[in-house]
């Protein structure tokens, strides 16, 4: 910085950048551009991509994971994380299959799925908020605990024979190619968007994520908000368990294996800061679409799944590094 510059009075903007400028610089726009590029690349790479039924089938690659990602986004913005979500799916699915053996019908199965999700979420939440344990440690533990119970109950066996009205949650179509899961995904996206961006509760989540101590002194009941978020994540895992179990029509203890990483990837790719305090639901929605399109597009080219994970990993690092690299080039120093 030159002396001449230093002697001038520092320019303090009297307002934030104009709305169009902010949109231009936003993460969501970057993601949208990437999504459009991937869409175009897919249409070029495979003649089978632009088919309504094929695209409809492809939505199942992300709908269930995205449902959990919405709640996970809120939790990560608040500075916590839940790595046990896939374990919760396994346990909730096992509980539903177990109830099925005793003749439970569709309504009971749904209640059990939601109930197990909530109980698991409450368990995580209590350990974090009451005992003050770090959520990453707690949920790494419960991840194995929940799935472990499924393995003990099922071993190498499977529960199946779910009723046909239950199958609607995973295989049903509301209208033409629009599946029930896709509608649920859209409805949940709107609900979570409103809760995070237009309610007092949403502002409290950001406040906690930015500075939990300051939030406490501002009168926010931090433990209560975090508890609600763990319950929500558990509940969403329960909903995902219902959809996935209905879609598969069977329960095995390996169900939804390693989904927690895909859910967290979706959230982080969506622009949610892993350190908490920043992020949007729109970003998560676009990230879900991107991940769905990438896996489906590469699947059409018969790219092996291992290469697909490499691609997703590279995409994640690339997208996160890009803004920092731009800043580095512009200012000559890293943020």
């Amino acid at each position, binding site marked *: 910085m030159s002396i001449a510059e230093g002697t001038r009075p520092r320019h303090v903007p009297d307002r934030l950048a104009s709305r169009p400028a902010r949109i231009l610089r936003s993460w969501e726009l970057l993601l949208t551009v990437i999504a459009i590029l991937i869409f175009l690349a897919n249409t070029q790479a*495979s*003649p*089978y*991509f632009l*088919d309504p039924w*094929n695209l409809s*089938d*492809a939505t*199942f*690659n992300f709908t269930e994971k995205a449902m959990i990602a919405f709640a996970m986004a809120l939790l990560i913005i608040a500075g916590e994380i839940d790595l046990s979500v896939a374990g919760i799916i396994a346990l909730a699915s096992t509980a539903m299959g177990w109830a099925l053996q005793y003749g439970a019908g569709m309504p009971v199965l749904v209640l059990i799925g939601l109930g197990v999700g909530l109980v698991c979420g409450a368990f995580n939440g209590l350990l974090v908020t009451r005992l003050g344990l770090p959520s990453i440690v707690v949920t790494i533990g419960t991840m194995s605990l929940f799935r472990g119970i499924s393995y003990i109950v099922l071993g190498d066996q*499977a529960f*199946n024979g779910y009723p046909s009205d239950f199958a609607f949650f995973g*295989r049903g179509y509301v209208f033409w190619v629009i599946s029930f899961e896709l509608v649920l995904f859209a409805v949940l996206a709107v609900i979570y968007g409103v809760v995070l961006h237009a309610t007092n509760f949403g502002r409290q989540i950001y406040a906690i994520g930015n500075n939990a101590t300051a939030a406490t002194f501002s009168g926010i009941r931090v433990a209560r908000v975090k508890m609600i978020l763990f319950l929500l994540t558990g509940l969403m895992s329960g909903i995902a368990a219902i959809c*996935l179990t209905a*879609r*598969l*029509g*069977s329960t*095995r203890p*390996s*169900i*939804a*294996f*390693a989904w927690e990483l895909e859910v967290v990837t979706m959230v982080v790719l969506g622009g949610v800061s892993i350190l908490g305090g920043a992020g949007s639901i729109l970003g998560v929605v676009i990230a879900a679409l991107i991940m769905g399109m990438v*896996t*489906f597009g590469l*699947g*059409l080219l*018969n790219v*092996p*799944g*291992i290469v*697909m*994970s490499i691609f997703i990993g590279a995409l994640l690092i690339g997208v996160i590094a890009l803004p920092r690299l731009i800043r580095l080039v512009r200012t000559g120093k890293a943020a």
Partner: protein
Amino acid sequence: MSITRRIAIATGVAAALMGTTAMAQDNVRIALVAKSLGNGFFEAAARGAEEAAEELGNAEIIYTGPTSTTAEGQIEVINSLVAQRVDAIAISANDPDAVVPALQKAMQRGITVISWDSGVAPEGREMHLAPSSDELIGQTIIKLAADKLPDGGKVAVLSATSTSTNQNTWIAEMEKVMDQYPDIELVATVYGDDLADKSYRETQGLLQSYPDLDAIIAPTSVGIVAAAQAVQDAGKTGEVNVTGLGLPSEMAGAIESGASQSFAIWNPVDLGYATAMLAYNLATDEAKAEPGAEIGMGRMGTATLDDDNQAAMSEPFTYDASNIDEFKSVF
């Protein structure tokens, strides 16, 4: 870039694209879906399928599968194969029921669906190819022992548990054909419960009770390894031949030491080859999957479908010193 040049390039690209689609249409595209990728057994099966494709000339193998052995991973794979309108899907299923809806959708769209190795429920496939059958396994295990005993001798069976359905069926099938080997005497059947240490002790017991024992038949991959070890430790290598069903990777040591002269298990290369041949014949309407149908499997002969549209490929493949090195790294 001038407009005419652009148009010329665009036409060229379009023509190239159309050209590749036309070529793809000529080939019969057979998707071989594994339980998971990175498993030697399935890689070997894919090699067999490629061999079949080469022999057929106008077949193309798409070898694919999920990264972990989950049903939802296989469903994603099936959906993308359906979207590509492949001609046939041949799957080794992670869950016989969960993949059924996705496979039914494939069949509705005119895709030939068969299962192999690990079967799919009958409503989700046209036919299933099992690597072998109970009958053929029973006949093979006694033949393995008898072939090395031209002058006859005493054999004992080391099984898994006394309630193991598979082993009991195979032993029963073996006893049915014992009269073909009049000089072979079955002296005892013991149970190692598929535990390495118990199988080892039971083998020691056999060696003490029957000092003139000539062979031990262990139709279990756990038992055969333990028995070979016990024979070796007792210094009876060369006197007592351990045989039965085992995995090449686990039995390589026993073959090398001579404690086991030969053993059997399905050959994944043959299985992949036969699967591709069946898928090709069904997809090209050379054959129809229905009870009693006989469908060609190239060099593996013909598959005869039973009432559930299931067929057995062949008797288990015999592994010995001549081929163990090739297969010990496979599975």
